[in-house]
């Protein structure tokens, strides 16, 4: 049972990784990256590592996604003004 669940989550993560690097729309890629972080949080929970799961949920999805999005805001705002 555990083996099949881990296999299904890994297939989802591989498809998400291909979609992230092949997308032309950059904010769409950042949101898919947050979904990738959610998949890895579920994997850490299955591997009996609750501290690492909590850290990855807060940092990998919260702070990392927000830093990427704010960088996009800085780049786009300059581009639209010119």
């Amino acid at each position, binding site marked *: 049972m555990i083996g099949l669940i881990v296999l299904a989550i890994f297939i989802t993560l591989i498809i998400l*990784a291909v979609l992230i690097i092949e997308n032309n729309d950059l904010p769409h890629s950042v949101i898919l990256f947050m979904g990738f972080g959610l998949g890895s949080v579920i994997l850490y929970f299955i591997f009996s590592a609750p501290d690492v799961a909590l850290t990855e949920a807060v940092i990998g999805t919260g702070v990392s996604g927000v830093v990427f999005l704010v960088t996009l805001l800085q*780049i786009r705002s*300059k581009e639209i003004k010119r």
Partner: protein
Amino acid sequence: MLDSFNQTPFLHSVITIGSLLIFAIGLVGALTKKNLFKIFLSFAIIESSLFIYFIGMHFEVGKVAPILTNEVTEFSTNMVDPVPQAMILTTIVIAIAVLALALSFIINYFKLTNNMRVDEMNELGEDR
């Protein structure tokens, strides 16, 4: 037959092949894409795949988390190794700090030259 999916060697081979595939996908993205932002996103994917590999290889089926709860009332060797989890916890925080520093560099570069593509970076005067 479904019981053979629960054994530890099958789980270890699934984790190895999956992590290596995600690493290869991130590496292709970092080497071939021409937008600076997408290169850093690929680096973040590479780091996530390595953390999954490191924690997954130290897991064996049937072991519990290294915390005392209502069911697990004493420390025994039935617990997962706590040292790799402590190392990965520190490494996740360091990875986000280094990524933020790199992103501040590309913001400053964009504000000076208004350019986000790697193959148009020729301020040092390289003739083609």
